[in-house]
């Protein structure tokens, strides 16, 4: 297969931030993003969908390394202190046909 390497940034955070965060991701250079609903537990306790705005989202962004770093720096600076947040980055092979 004809592939190229890209970074996959995964952000798990509060559902309330979806609109704002996805808007910022685009401003930071992401060509797209994928969001799914999640629930979980971390330092800030259990977060679940039973309660409006109480749930988490799981946001994935495929991008080049530079953008990945920009995104990671942005979310840590802006959301880490006050919001439930986990961020991790993986390296994946993306099909040539997809461009980012």
């Amino acid at each position, binding site marked *: 297969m004809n592939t190229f390497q890209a970074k996959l940034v995964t952000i798990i955070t509060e559902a309330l931030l979806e609109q704002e965060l996805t808007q910022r991701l685009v401003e930071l250079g992401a060509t797209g993003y994928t969001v799914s609903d999640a629930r979980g537990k971390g330092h800030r306790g259990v977060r679940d969908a039973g*309660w*409006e705005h109480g749930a988490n989202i799981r946001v994935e962004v495929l991008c080049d390394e530079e953008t990945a770093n920009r995104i990671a720096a942005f979310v840590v600076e802006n959301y880490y202190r*006050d919001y439930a947040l986990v961020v991790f980055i993986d390296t994946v092979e993306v099909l040539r046909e997809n461009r980012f």
Partner: protein
Amino acid sequence: MDPVILFFVLGLAAGAGKADLRLPPAIYDFLSAYLLLAIGLKGGIELAVQPVGPLVPKVAVVLLLASLLPLLAYPVLRFGGRLARPDAASVAAHYGSVSVGTYAVAVAFLAARGVSYESYLPLFLAIMEMPGIVVGILLARGLSRGVRWGRLLHEVFLGKAIVLLGGGLLIGWAAGPEGFSSLEAFYSGLFRGLLSLFLLEMGLLCAGQLGALRRVGPFLVVFGIVVPVAFGLLGCAAGTVMNLSTGGAALLGVLAASASYIAVPAAMRISVPEANPAISLAAALGVTFPFNVTLGIPLYLRLAQWFARF
């Protein structure tokens, strides 16, 4: 006890006993949207048959009351409860604002007792939702620091509660009693039935806060009962001074006494993110909502009846 309250008790017991019971979030969203629309419509229809002019001064008084409440709550929280500034401001915002669920229970309670009230009370419900948020943010930030007012005003005026309640008021007002008759089976006939399901879910949600309550400590438990009673007294008094009927004054007391658990948490999370949301929710859902729907509402009616004697 009103049977709809028994549904709340069932939910509370099931949640506390960790029963495997959970209504889907979609149903909860549907029920709360329904209650907002139904309350708004009912108010709007009755507004349609009376002049709006005399309402203006009353609306002003209510706005004033709603702005005063968080200012009263804040020092109690900050100095009595030793909460950090953002936390104190956030809790004050919750108690300054109102709870639609509590209002709906009070409406059902008055209806069961045949106590009537002014048709514009739902308007007060809509109006009292907002000032608490704004005052709470000012308490947290002061006037100087960078509040994103644009975002905030959007959040306040275009939140789900205001849109559905205000929209219902407008539709009811435009449609009037005849226009509404064909919608009555749904929006009036099912009101108590759907309220009972909503309260079942509220019981489960409140039970979920009992654990958090233990962590936030005894101060908030006392706060969550004493402050609503004090605010209820204030609301009933204001209603009496405004010449509302006994039922109307009681409902204003209920509004003052109730604490928001939908609109304000979302607004605070965005505008005062450093406040710990668990504190406000534990107090509003774990203490005040259960207190108000069981003991509070009858008490506020008593207070209003007592004031009415003067």
